[in-house]
């Protein structure tokens, strides 16, 4: 069993590497096609042809694109993410802090959102058709239907500006205690919890209900099992694979999809870093950010697959 999973992980890692290669090439190509380059951006209004040429040469940007790509790829293979074009800091150094921030925000959000969403989704499925179910379903549809910047802005106005309970910004630094951390993260976490929970609730409810319609759940019902037992003992373990997948997809959103939340709360995460990098055409940084998003996404999907396998004795072998 462990051997099987190990083999599967190895196989998946291969696919992950392949996908990363595809993505890195695509990102490189797209960035090359973008109008304007890092030098012009850096010089801004003072970009005269001479100044551009001089700076470009100084930054070794006059080499052919392919050579730069291969060099970058070679660096990546040896764990060297390269040097940012615009501020000469190591990309790894630049990303490190931001990534930690993103993971911290994502982690705290997941800690709240996942149990909440699974709980509500399972309860809604358990009492399918009840008032509770209908309230939860209506609420999730509403949340799904509202752009997140509205959720975020409204939350800021209510909790930060008028009630002054919570800070309007979420600065990742200077966090001493857990309480302070929670207070600091409250606004973005509330917003993100809203956004990602709705999807998870819907998926959880749907997959539990799907499972409830199977013959073995009917059988359990005919054995005299209560609704609660039916859902928790029979439906849930079999719906776990689908739920894990939904959770993974939602969590992947916490990596790159949070750009709006990062913008509104001025949170220094990787998504904003990448947008900055695009604005300055800072290729090594763009590449590395894209790699991180891609890698994170694939990892989450892989974890979901492993959960699905562990939950299913047939696949477990």
């Amino acid at each position, binding site marked *: 069993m462990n051997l099987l999973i190990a083999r599967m992980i190895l196989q998946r890692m291969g696919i992950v590497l392949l996908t990363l290669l595809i993505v890195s090439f695509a990102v490189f190509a797209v960035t090359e096609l973008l109008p304007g380059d890092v030098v012009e951006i850096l010089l801004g209004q003072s970009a005269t042809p001479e100044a551009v040429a001089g700076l470009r040469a100084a930054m070794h940007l006059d080499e052919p694109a392919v050579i730069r790509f291969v060099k970058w790829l070679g660096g990546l293979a040896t764990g060297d993410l390269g040097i940012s074009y615009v501020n000469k800091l190591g990309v790894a150094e630049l990303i490190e802090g931001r990534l930690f921030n993103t993971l911290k925000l994502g982690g705290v959000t997941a800690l709240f959102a996942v149990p909440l969403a699974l709980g509500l989704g399972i309860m809604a499925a358990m009492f399918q058709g009840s008032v509770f179910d209908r309230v939860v379903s209506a609420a999730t549809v509403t949340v799904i239907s509202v752009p997140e*910047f509205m959720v975020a802005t409204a939350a800021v106005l209510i909790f930060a500006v008028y009630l002054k309970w919570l800070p309007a910004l979420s600065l990742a630094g200077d966090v001493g205690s857990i309480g302070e951390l929670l207070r600091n993260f409250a606004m973005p976490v509330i917003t993100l919890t809203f956004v990602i929970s709705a999807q998870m609730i819907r998926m959880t409810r749907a997959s539990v209900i799907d499972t409830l319609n199977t013959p073995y759940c009917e059988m359990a019902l005919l054995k005299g099992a209560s609704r609660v037992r039916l859902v928790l003992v029979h439906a849930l373990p079999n719906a776990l694979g689908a739920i894990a997948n939904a959770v993974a997809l939602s969590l992947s959103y916490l*990596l790159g999809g949070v750009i709006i939340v990062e913008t509104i709360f001025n949170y220094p995460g990787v998504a904003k870093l990448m947008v900055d990098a*695009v604005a300055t055409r800072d290729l090594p940084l763009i590449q590395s950010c894209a790699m991180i998003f891609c890698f994170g996404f694939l990892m989450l999907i892989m974890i979901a697959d492993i959960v699905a396998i562990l939950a299913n004795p047939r696949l477990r072998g």
Partner: protein
Amino acid sequence: MVRIGLGMRISALGLASAVVIAFWGLVAILAPLIVPYDPGKIVDYDYFGPMTEDFLLGTDYLGRDMLSRILMGARYTVGISLAAVSLACFLGVTLGMVAAVIGGLLDQVLSRVIDAFNSIPSKLFGLVVVAAVGSSLPVLVLTLTAIYTPGSYRFARALAVNINAMDFVTVARARGEGLIYLIREEILPNIVGPVLADFGLRFVFIVLLLSGLSFLGLGVQPPYADWGALVQENIGGLPFGAPAVIFPSVAIASLTIAVNMLIDNLPRRIRDRSAP
């Protein structure tokens, strides 16, 4: 487990949703004829004006008539989203069916590439492309299409793989039928229901993503604006509850909720799935 007594209620909800969608569709088509003012004209020196007889939904940050702007905005929001979702579903469904029918290496390669694409966060992708090449209508539509094609592909492929395993497809194959016939006659008619439901959901996501992009400053050309852009440019009015920011938000929510509700209340045979 389905209460029969609910039958009527559910369809009433579905009907109401359909009416809302039809309303916005109609507004999108008729907008230029029914706007009370030129949507780009500054008609009031006050900004974030209240709801008055002259300006039914108040005025925006420049003193333009909000009602006119929202009515015209429907054109862009509904139009762009519809165009993008149509293209995305056409491409995704076609590719998905081809991959399912041909299978083998093609399927592997397509699925791999699509997966790779899927792993790039959509909002960032949209931001990068639109930031890079400008936000003209074709660019917006194509970007949104590119973002939503993979999902449509995966969905259609999964459905088509199931249909492809059916005996009637096998019979057609044994008859010697070509790819186009298999896709058009045997697969498509049998996945069209769920694909339509998926179309609706994807439409909602596109409306929301478009709003998100507009919020980040990338949308249609002034003086017009889609609903997301209307919210964005007037967001400064939110603290004092200006109608200029409330109503476009209501418009977005009413459309997306209606589409969601309609899909949720479609007959089960058509629906067949509840989320992306």
